[in-house]
C-alpha cells in the first residue's frame, strides 16, 4: 500500500494535493500569527488561507501525478534513464489517465479534456439563454447570471478553444513534419496536466463564498479587485492555463524549427504547421501579459499592492492596456490554428493544391505582426488617450487584408478542383468560409471608431465574437476533429450523423447569432440579466436557436463515442491526403515512424502525375505514386 503512495500516479497525486493544501493553510496561519494578525482573514477580497493553498495544491497534484519525477531525479543526482520510454504510448484506456510522454496520447488527452469543458461551458450558455428567453428574472438572479456568463467565456476561451487547437496540433503536427515526437515530451505532459487543473479551478469558484467570479472574462479592475473570493480562483486558474499554453507554444516552436524531416524546408511545410508556428509566436510573447495582469489583480486583492486602485496611486485603465495586449492577440491564437485546419481540409477534399501557398503563409505572419498593434480597439470608449484611437483603427482595418487573402485563397483552391463533400469535415470547412466572412465584416465595422462608439459593449459585440469564435474557431475545430478522427482512433465515424450535426450546428449558429447584431444596434447592452421588453421576441427566438445548437452537439458526442468503439476500421488514408500523417497507419505506431521519412516536394501536389510530398522508409525514390484506398465514395 505504501508503494502506491510513492509511485507516480493518482494515489500519490491525491496525497500530495492534500499535503500541499495543508502546507499552504499552515503557512498563512503561521505568518499571520507571527505578524500579530488573526489567523484567518475573511474580508470579501482577501482569504489568504484559501488563495495560498489554491496556488500550492495544483503544484502538489502535478508533483504527485509524476510530472516532475524525471527532472527532480536528475536534479538531485539520482539515476535516470535518458531513453526511458516506460511512460510512452497507450496500451489500454488506463494509460490515458497517467502522465504520458507520447504526443499522440497527449493530443487525445487534450482533445477529450477540452471537449468536456466545451460541454460544461455550453451548458452554462444554455442556462444564460434560458434566463434571457424572457425579460425579467426567471431562473437565476443577477449575481448568478454574471457568474454564469463569466464562467462560460472563461471555460470556452482558456480551457476549450486554445487547448483544443493545441491538442489537435499535438497529435497531428509531429506526424506532419515527420518527427517521432515533440521536442520536449515531458514538458508536453506537464502542459497537458495543467489544463484540467485550470478548468476545475474555474468551476470550483462556484463553491467559493460570494459565488463564482462575476466580473466577466475580461475581469476589469476595479470591479475585479474588489470582487468576492471567486475572482481569485480565476486569477490563479489563468496562471495554470497560461503556463500550459506557453510551454506548449515553446514546444511547438522548437519542434517545428528543429525536428522537421530531411527535405522539409519551410516552404514545404503544410499550412497547419505554418499556422501553429504563427500561433506559437503569438502565445510565447503575449500570454505572459495576461498572467501578469491577473497576478497584479491577485496581489491587489490580497496584498493591497494598488496597481489598479485609483486614489492610492493605481491606474484603472492600465489594466485594460495590459489585458488587451494579450487578449487581442489571443483571438488570433484562437483562429490561426483553425485557418491551418481549413487549408488542410479544403485542399484534400477539393483535390487541389492550395491557391497561393506562399501568400497564405505570409498572410499568417502578417496577422501575427499586425495583431500586436491593434489591442486598443477594445478601448475606443474606455477613456484612454484619445489620439491613440486613430492609429489603432487603421491597423485594425488593415488586419482584414491578410484575413481576406486567406478567404479568397480558399475559394481559389476550390476552382478547377474535384470537390468531394462526402466528409462532414469539408462541410464545416466550406460553411466556415461564409460564416467567418460575416464575422470578419462585422469586425471591420467594429474597427471604425464612430460606429464602435455606438455598438461597443452591446449585443452587436456578442454577435461578432460568436460569429468569429463559434462560426470561425469552433467550425474549424469540428472540421479538424472529423478530418483526423480516422487517424486518431483508427475508426470511421458515421457520416449521416455528421451531416445532421453539421446542418443543426449551421442553422443554430446563424439563428442564434444573426439576430444578436440587430438587438445590439437597436439598444440592448451586453452582460445584462434583464433587458427592455421591446427585445423580448428577438431574445426568445435567439434562445430557441441556441437550444437547437446545444442539442445537436449531443449528436456529435454520440457519434464520436460510438464510432470510436464500434465504427468500421479506418484505412490509413481515407481522404487521399498527401501530407505525412496520411502515409502512416491509423492510428500511428508508438514512435510514428520506423525510420524518418524524406520530404521531396510540397504538401499539396494534387494533380501532378508522380509528384510526392514525402517518401516513407523502405520505398525507393522512383516508386510511382500508389493508388490510395478511398472509402465512403
Amino acid at each position: 500500500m505504501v508503494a502506491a503512495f510513492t509511485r507516480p500516479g493518482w494515489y500519490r497525486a491525491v496525497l500530495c494535493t492534500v499535503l500541499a493544501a495543508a502546507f499552504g493553510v499552515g503557512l498563512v496561519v503561521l505568518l499571520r500569527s507571527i505578524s500579530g494578525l488573526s489567523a484567518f482573514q475573511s474580508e470579501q477580497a482577501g482569504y489568504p488561507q484559501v488563495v495560498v493553498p489554491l496556488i500550492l495544491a495544483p503544484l502538489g497534484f502535478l508533483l504527485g501525478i509524476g510530472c516532475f519525477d524525471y527532472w527532480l531525479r536528475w536534479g538531485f543526482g539520482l539515476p535516470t534513464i535518458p531513453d526511458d520510454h516506460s511512460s510512452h504510448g497507450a496500451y489500454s484506456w488506463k494509460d490515458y489517465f497517467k502522465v504520458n510522454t507520447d504526443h499522440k496520447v497527449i493530443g487525445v488527452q487534450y482533445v477529450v479534456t477540452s471537449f468536456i469543458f466545451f460541454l460544461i461551458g455550453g451548458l452554462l450558455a444554455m442556462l444564460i439563454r434560458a434566463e434571457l428567453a424572457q425579460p425579467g428574472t426567471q431562473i437565476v438572479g443577477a449575481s448568478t447570471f454574471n457568474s454564469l456568463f463569466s464562467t462560460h467565456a472563461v471555460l470556452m476561451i482558456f480551457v476549450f478553444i486554445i487547448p483544443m487547437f493545441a491538442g489537435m496540433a499535438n497529435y497531428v503536427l509531429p506526424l506532419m513534419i515527420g518527427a517521432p515526437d515533440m521536442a520536449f515530451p515531458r514538458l508536453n505532459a506537464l502542459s497537458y496536466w495543467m489544463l484540467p487543473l485550470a478548468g476545475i479551478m474555474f468551476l470550483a469558484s462556484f463553491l467559493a463564498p460570494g459565488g463564482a467570479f462575476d466580473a466577466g472574462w475580461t475581469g476589469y479592475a476595479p470591479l475585479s479587485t474588489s470582487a468576492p473570493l471567486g475572482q481569485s480562483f480565476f486569477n490563479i486558474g489563468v496562471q495554470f492555463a497560461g503556463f500550459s499554453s506557453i510551454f506548449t507554444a515553446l514546444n511547438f516552436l522548437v519542434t517545428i524549427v528543429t525536428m522537421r524531416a530531411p527535405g522539409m524546408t519551410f516552404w514545404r511545410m503544410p499550412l497547419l504547421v505554418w499556422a501553429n508556428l504563427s500561433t506559437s509566436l503569438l502565445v510565447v510573447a503575449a500570454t505572459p501579459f495576461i498572467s501578469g495582469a491577473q497576478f497584479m489583480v491577485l496581489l491587489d486583492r490580497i496584498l493591497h499592492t494598488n496597481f489598479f486602485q485609483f486614489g492610492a496611486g493605481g491606474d484603472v485603465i492600465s489594466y485594460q492596456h495590459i489585458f488587451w495586449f494579450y487578449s487581442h492577440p489571443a483571438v488570433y491564437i484562437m483562429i490561426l490554428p483553425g485557418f491551418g485546419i481549413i487549408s488542410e481540409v479544403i485542399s484534400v477534399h477539393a483535390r487541389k493544391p492550395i491557391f497561393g501557398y506562399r501568400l497564405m503563409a505570409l498572410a499568417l505572419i502578417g496577422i501575427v505582426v499586425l495583431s500586436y498593434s491593434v489591442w486598443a480597439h477594445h478601448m475606443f470608449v474606455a477613456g484612454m488617450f484619445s489620439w491613440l484611437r486613430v492609429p489603432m483603427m487603421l491597423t485594425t482595418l488593415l488586419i482584414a487584408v491578410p484575413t481576406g487573402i486567406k478567404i479568397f485563397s480558399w475559394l481559389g483552391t476550390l476552382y478547377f478542383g474535384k470537390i468531394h463533400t462526402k466528409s462532414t469535415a469539408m462541410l464545416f470547412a466550406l460553411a466556415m468560409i461564409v460564416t467567418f466572412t460575416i464575422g470578419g465584416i462585422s469586425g471591420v465595422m467594429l474597427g471604425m471608431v464612430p460606429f464602435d462608439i455606438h455598438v461597443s459593449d452591446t449585443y452587436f459585440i456578442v454577435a461578432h465574437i460568436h460569429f468569429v469564435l463559434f462560426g470561425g474557431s469552433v467550425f474549424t475545430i469540428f472540421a479538424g476533429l472529423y478530418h483526423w478522427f480516422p487517424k486518431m482512433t483508427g475508426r470511421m465515424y458515421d457520416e449521416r450523423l455528421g451531416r445532421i450535426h453539421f446542418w443543426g450546428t449551421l442553422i443554430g449558429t446563424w439563428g442564434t447569432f444573426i439576430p444578436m447584431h440587430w438587438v445590439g444596434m437597436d439598444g440592448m447592452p451586453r452582460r445584462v440579466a434583464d433587458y427592455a421588453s421591446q427585445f423580448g421576441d428577438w431574445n426568445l427566438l435567439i434562445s430557441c436557436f441556441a437550444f437547437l445548437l446545444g442539442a445537436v452537439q449531443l449528436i456529435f458526442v454520440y457519434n464520436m463515442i460510438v464510432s470510436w468503439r464500434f465504427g468500421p476500421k479506418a484505412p490509413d488514408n481515407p481522404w487521399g491526403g498527401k501530407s505525412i500523417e496520411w502515409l502512416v497507419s491509423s492510428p500511428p505506431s508508438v514512435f510514428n515512424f520506423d525510420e524518418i521519412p524524406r520530404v521531396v516536394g510540397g504538401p499539396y501536389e494534387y494533380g501532378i502525375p508522380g509528384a510526392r510530398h514525402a517518401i516513407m522508409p523502405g520505398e525507393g525514390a522512383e516508386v510511382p505514386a500508389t493508388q490510395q484506398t478511398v472509402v465512403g465514395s
Partner: protein
Amino acid sequence: MFTNRLPIAKLAGAVVALSAVIAAVMLSINWNGAEDSTAAPKIDDLLNIMIVVSSVIFAIVVVALAYALIAFRAKPGDESDGEPIHGNTRLEIAWTVIPTIIVLFAGGWSWKVLNEIEETNPRHLTVDVFSQQFAWSFAYPGKEYAYSQGVLHVPVNRQIVFKMHSQDVIHSFWVPQWRIKKDNVPGITTTAIVTPTKTGTYQLICTELCGFGHSTMRAKIIVQSESAFEKWVGGLKEKVPTPMMVSVKQDTETNPEPLERVEAE
C-alpha cells in the same frame, strides 16, 4: 489563362444582383433606431456605406463558393485530382491591394466622421456626470452647482460636453438615440460630446459591467427647450459647492475612514 474558362460575365452579374438585393434590404431597415443628435446621421451614413461595401464582399464570397460547388463538384466515383494550379500572381496581388484600398477608405471616412462629431462648439454647456453602483447623478454649471439624481435634463440643439466621473468601478454612459458612449472611469475624468436635436424623454443605459445591478442601472434623460431647461435648473433644490466625487477605499483595516472625499479635477 484560366479566367477564360469561367463565365466571368455571368458571375459578375450574379454578384451585382445579389449585392443589390442584400444592400437594398439592409439599407431599408433603420438598424440603429431614432437619430436624435447631430452625430447620429453621420454615424448611420458610415454604417450605410459599410453595408453597401460589405454586401458586395459578401456577395462575392457567396457567389464564388456557390459556383465552385456547382461547377467543380466531383462526379460520383471520380477519384482523380483537380488541376495542379498553384496560384495566380495577378489575382493574388488584386485581392491584397483592393481590400487594402477599401479598408483605408473606410478608415479615412471614419476619421473624418470622428473629427466632426467630437468638434467642440464654443457655446457648449458642460454637465458633470457622476456614476456609482448603480445610480447616476448629474451636476449643472452655474454659480453653485445644481445637482440631480437619476434624471438628466439637457437643452435641445446646444452642444453638451459631459465630464464623467465614477465613484467606484467603471460604468459606461450610453444613449442609443444619440449614438454616444463613454466609460466613466474612477480616478480620471472622461469626456463625451453630444448635440441633441430633438426634445423628448430618453434612457441613459450603463453599458460596462459594474456588478449585480448593472442591467438595471438606468437614468432618465429629458431633452427640452433651452428656456425650459434654464427654468428647471434654476428650480433645483439640491446643490453642491463643486463637482466632487466620493471614493470608497476597500481596505478598512488600513484605512479606518471608509469614505474619503477627493476633489475632481
